[in-house]
């Protein structure tokens, strides 16, 4: 019995070394794995921000009164950036057309006078809503600035001084943002990108390693060897999992923590154990592709077919509550969806095993199902 285990272990070790050597000799691939886990994550986390910042604003002030200047001066960074004045409507439209400005504010003549006399007046705003979310945010911030200014000037006119504001039944709303108090986009983008890259490799690497053997015919050698199908498959998945975990560690310790100061609130050990589990189970999806495909080109296309929905239904780009009902159901079938909860839970929220139990169960369940089924299909190929 013991000898059998020893034999199995030695076979496993030999296959593991073979896989790692094979991967290590593909220098270009290795270089790209390193690139993807470092530079690529750095790029994604550093430059990209999904929030409204420095919206390029042009002003068309036809009033030139103290009031109009006061109002326009309230459009300040970080949300708005004043890019100067435009004279004519045509010039303003051209700037919007060419994407040089995101919004144009026009103050009508007589604005200051009407405001002083208590007559209703208006400000016109043209917004480029090619990106509808940013368009909405710009409008809502502008609305806030304008109504605040209107309220202040009205109170002044009605003789309720600004210092009397505490005698008015105003509601002060103190908003506290948890887990990411300054809304650092880099935290979210960096971690999400790391998970995405890990997913891409977790599906592609084992699938490719398997199909390559098929395409080159070396799989015949493996079949005539005393290895069982599981003995062929398992070292492949384990070696790739190891490589991907190294990549995750690389990005965490070289990029995310030192450069972007991501707070690791939970246990890193737990994070790596669960990441290993995730990569391992996701590899099962790659094996699906590998069993169906006869050559690498097919395997590549099939992997994309698997990867694209996984990445997009994970909830990283679109929250589940914003999805149509039928897609929301599909989300629960994407292991990345659970992994995302787990990774953010451990890294940013500091959650432990108890809080993450549902996510771990979900991911584990899908993993066992997929991996088991993949193995079954793979085994059938050899019979």
């Amino acid at each position, binding site marked *: 019995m013991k000898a059998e285990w020893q034999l199995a272990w030695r076979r496993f070790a030999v296959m593991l070394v073979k896989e790692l050597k094979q991967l290590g000799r593909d220098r270009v691939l290795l270089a790209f794995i390193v690139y993807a886990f470092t530079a690529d994550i750095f790029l994604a986390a550093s430059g990209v921000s999904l929030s409204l910042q420095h919206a390029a604003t042009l002003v068309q002030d036809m009033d030139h009164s103290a009031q109009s200047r006061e109002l326009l001066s309230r459009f300040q960074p970080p949300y708005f950036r004043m890019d100067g004045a435009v004279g004519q409507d045509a010039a303003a439209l051209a700037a919007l057309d060419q994407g040089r400005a995101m919004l144009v504010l026009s103050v009508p003549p007589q604005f200051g006078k009407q405001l002083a006399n208590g007559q209703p007046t208006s400000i016109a705003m043209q917004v480029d809503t090619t990106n509808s979310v940013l368009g909405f945010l710009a409008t809502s*911030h502008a609305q806030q600035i304008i109504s605040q200014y209107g309220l202040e000037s009205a109170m002044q006119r009605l003789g309720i001084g600004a210092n009397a504001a505490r005698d008015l039944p105003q509601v002060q709303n103190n908003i506290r943002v948890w887990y990411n108090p300054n809304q650092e986009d880099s935290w979210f983008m960096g971690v999400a990108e790391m998970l995405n890259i890990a997913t*891409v490799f977790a599906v592609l690497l084992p699938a490719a390693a398997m199909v390559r053997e098929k395409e080159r015919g070396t799989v015949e050698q493996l079949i005539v060897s005393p290895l069982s199908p599981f003995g062929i498959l398992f070292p492949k998945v384990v070696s790739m999992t190891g490589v991907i975990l190294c990549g995750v560690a690389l990005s965490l310790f070289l990029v995310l923590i030192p450069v972007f100061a991501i707070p690791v609130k939970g246990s890193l050990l737990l994070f790596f154990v669960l990441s290993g589990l995730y990569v391992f189970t996701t590899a099962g999806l790659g094996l699906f592709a590998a069993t169906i495909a006869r050559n690498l080109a097919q395997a590549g296309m099939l992997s994309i077919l698997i990867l694209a929905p996984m990445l997009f239904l994970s909830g990283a780009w679109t929250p589940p509550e914003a999805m149509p009902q039928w897609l929301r159901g599909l989300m629960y079938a994407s292991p990345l969806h659970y992994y995302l909860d787990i990774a953010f839970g451990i890294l940013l929220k500091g959650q432990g095993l108890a809080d993450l139990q549902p996510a771990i169960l979900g991911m584990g369940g899908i993993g066992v199902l997929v991996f088991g089924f993949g193995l079954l299909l793979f085994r059938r190929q050899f019979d």
Partner: protein
Amino acid sequence: MNLQRVLAIAGKEWREIVRDRLFFSLAFVVPALLMLLFGYGLSLDVENIPFAVVDHDHSAASRDYAYRFIDSRYFQFRGYAGDERDAGRLIGSGAVRVVLVIPPQFGKSLAQGRPAAIQTLVDGSFPSRAMTTKGYVTAINAAFSLAAVAQAVSQASGLSQPEALAQLTPIALESRYLYNQSVSSIWSLAPKLIMVILMLSPPFLTALGVVREKENGSIFNIYASNVSRGEFLAGKLAPYVAISSVNILLLWLLAVLLYQVPFKGSLLFFLPATLVYVLCTTGIGLLVSVLVRTQVAAMIVTMVVTMIPAVLYSGLIIPIVSLGAGAHVVAQLMPAMYYTDIVVGCFLKGVGLMSLWRPLAVLAAYACLLFAIGYHLFSKRPNS
């Protein structure tokens, strides 16, 4: 360049593609599927945000305040929570993203004409969503606050309540949404999806096609033949460009028919311009395939090289003007940004060659450069 030889290579490649049925059908299915999936799944709108309320006050005013949120289409009420600890657990598990905490004495303070405070807890793990949520919360709070102030003013001055409200809001904001009047996501999204998908699929197909020949060793037939480098590359790439051209039409039809995006520009400009873009992305695939030796590497390199720039640095999600300085430079170096100008211009703005010749010229130059480098690096006498 001998046209006959080019045709022979192209014919051989075409046959090889068509005979691999799975690959051939996936070449069309994958782009269409991506279009469907992203179109329905990639919604940037922040709506139906699940929220809970902790009401320590239980007054008419606190209920009124909560109802302002419950009635909003941006929020979805998930019930009252007992205390802050409950609320914290709900946010931690992701069951709700926002919790309103209404303190005791809230209604009393307002009734006595004194200011009151509310605390709102927002889940910040998705920063952009947290920003938008903050925007909604502030807007609803401002409306409630204004109504309360108007009531106080009307009691003090004898004006009727609507009159007091009008007095307090002397400035109206008349906003005009350009290019996308309904501010619906899919209109702005679908044209850019065409950009993303045409950035992903042609290089992928091309890189796989060329490297396959290298890895199988069948490329030695080419090395030994009298086909020149240029003839080989032209013939080899032609079928992939043809497949991508069909995909252009397919994607355009999906955008116009399925997503009902208005197409304001001219097809006569749009189709050739898109073809230039496809040549450009095919060139990326060519470059990758010259540089790598194995198909695995080809797949991964194309994925990494094309996916991230296409999604993040193209203006798909973030407008180029709002990018950080470093990212701005990266965006300028990628073809995706230039094509975004073209595809958005054609669909939503209805502008043509007159205002879009610049990005088109950049794309054409880009394509030429890529092919030149690819041609230069491809050798019929490899060292190894």
